[in-house]
């Protein structure tokens, strides 16, 4: 019969229309700005720099090794190394980024900078509402705008952040152990030498 298919189709739309009042399966939309779906943990938008402690400038994990700058596909990262050094999380003096800019109008959220970073210093944020009326300065983030605390990182990616913290703690323990062993060996070696030639041992270098 002509029109049978149409009626069958209309039956389907009627079922969906009626179903949307009772079933969440059939009504999947939310009223966006007021109502929000929770973001999955893995979701990513743009990169940020992690810092430990309270002071963002002193706590930045980045050591300006420039690997992310080299590996970034659209080349949206710009780093300038510092002239002096500051201690990193294990206490070793390291260079830090005097300048760290990301042009997020160029960034394509691919996460390759996060993958290649050996220092767990750059991570992905899930903040996506970044519209601004200034398309040059407003979208060029410097290191102060990029810095986020480790607590913030724990808040948005809890599982991943816990893994990173465990790995860093392990590295730190290893480094401390090694430093202690080195110090002990140096002390053991230096003790007889000091006894023989006290003047030489007192001189720096």
């Amino acid at each position: 019969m002509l029109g049978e298919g149409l009626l069958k189709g209309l039956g389907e739309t009627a079922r969906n229309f009626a179903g949307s009042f009772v079933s969440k399966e059939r009504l999947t939309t939310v009223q966006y700005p007021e109502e929000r779906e929770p973001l999955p943990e893995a979701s990513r938008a743009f990169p940020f720099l992690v810092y430990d402690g309270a002071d963002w400038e002193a706590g930045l994990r980045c050591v300006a090794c420039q690997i992310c700058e080299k590996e970034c596909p659209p080349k949206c990262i710009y780093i300038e190394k510092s002239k002096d050094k500051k201690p990193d999380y294990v206490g070793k003096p390291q260079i830090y980024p005097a300048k760290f800019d990301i042009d997020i109008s160029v960034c394509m959220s691919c996460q390759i900078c996060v993958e290649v970073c050996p220092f767990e210093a750059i991570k992905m944020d899930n903040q996506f509402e970044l519209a601004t009326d200034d398309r040059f300065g407003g979208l060029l983030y410097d290191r102060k705008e990029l810095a986020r605390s480790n607590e913030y990182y724990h808040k948005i990616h809890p599982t991943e952040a816990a893994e990173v913290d465990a790995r860093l703690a392990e590295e730190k323990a290893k480094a401390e152990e090694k430093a202690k062993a080195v110090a002990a060996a140096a002390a053991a070696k230096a003790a007889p030498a000091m006894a023989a030639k006290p003047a030489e041992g007192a001189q720096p270098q």
Partner: protein
Amino acid sequence: MSESLLEAWNRPPTIEVDGEGELLEVAMGPHHPSTHGVFRMDVVLDGERVIKLKPVFGYLHRNHEQIGQTVGYLQMMPYTDRLDYFCSLTNNWAYALAVEKLVGQAVPERAEYIRVILAELTRIQNHASTIGFLTQEMGASGTPLMYAFREREKILDLFESLTGSRMMCNYMRFGGCRVDMTEAHLNAARKIVTGLPRFIDEFENLLTSNEILMARSQGMGVLKPDLAVNAGITGPMLRASGVNYDIRKVDHYGIYDRFSFRVPLGEHGDIYDRYMVRVLEMRESLKILEQALKDIPAGPFIDPKAKIRGFKPKPGEAYGRIEAPKGELGFYLISDGGTSPYRFRIRPPSFINLTVLEDMCIGQNVADVVVVFGSVDIVLGEVDR
């Protein structure tokens, strides 16, 4: 072959023109809402009838092949997401396959299974939304499209929780995948797979026997099998013309020889057959998904010895191809031993499937050109690259 574009345009029409009145040349697009983006068809009309049609490409050209020759091997991976932005995971897979062939990298068992699962989910969401767009172009103002997008949303939610991004997944790596698909992700996939047959049944109830769809699509835009083969058409369009050619069956890439599934074929090569082949392919994809989700083994998701950074393959060449939802997607790489390929070439299915547009449209009405164009299933990001 030596005919220039201008000569092609000036050649006499292939079908008889009504002597009354004059021909009208119309530029359909690049901002026509039915062109899925920015694509122009220069159409010569005799009344309502199409006499000649010239597709004009290049409005979304972003220089992907040159970028591929400039950046490193890993850096190209996120760019492949942007080719066919509906199916970024199959694009990733095709590129990873080409690089793996180039360097002789093996892929662990689990990673192969994860790739199959994600590729088949991608195929389902692509076919569902393609049918949605096709019906939209026939005048079904959004209902099938919205139903398709509702299901697609569930699949994209899984992609987001797994890869971090809904469409620009950047997930495959040379020798495996970036992160593991945990039991929670697999259960989410299982839930989607158990819910999808009902959706496809509903979709078919809505459309398959719909008189309007049948009237608009049966006998329209017929593509003859010999022309399809000669023009290098692949994917559902070729199979709708009745040619049994599926790279999953022909090439046995990945682990597709382990799954039992059939290749749906059309008979007439018209728009309705293309619609039907896509529906049946969704059902076959579900079969593959059920088997893959049952059999997925434990183990590493990436080869632990696989090199990600500082990639310098030996001089040589490789061609990796897969059955992407739209057809044969291939990446051709020539390495000269440097950090980036000497030559990088993409074989895009949508671009090559579009080359027969004129043959399918001649003699049809203008309104049918839109439907024929929709049945090809293109994404302009891939056509213009």
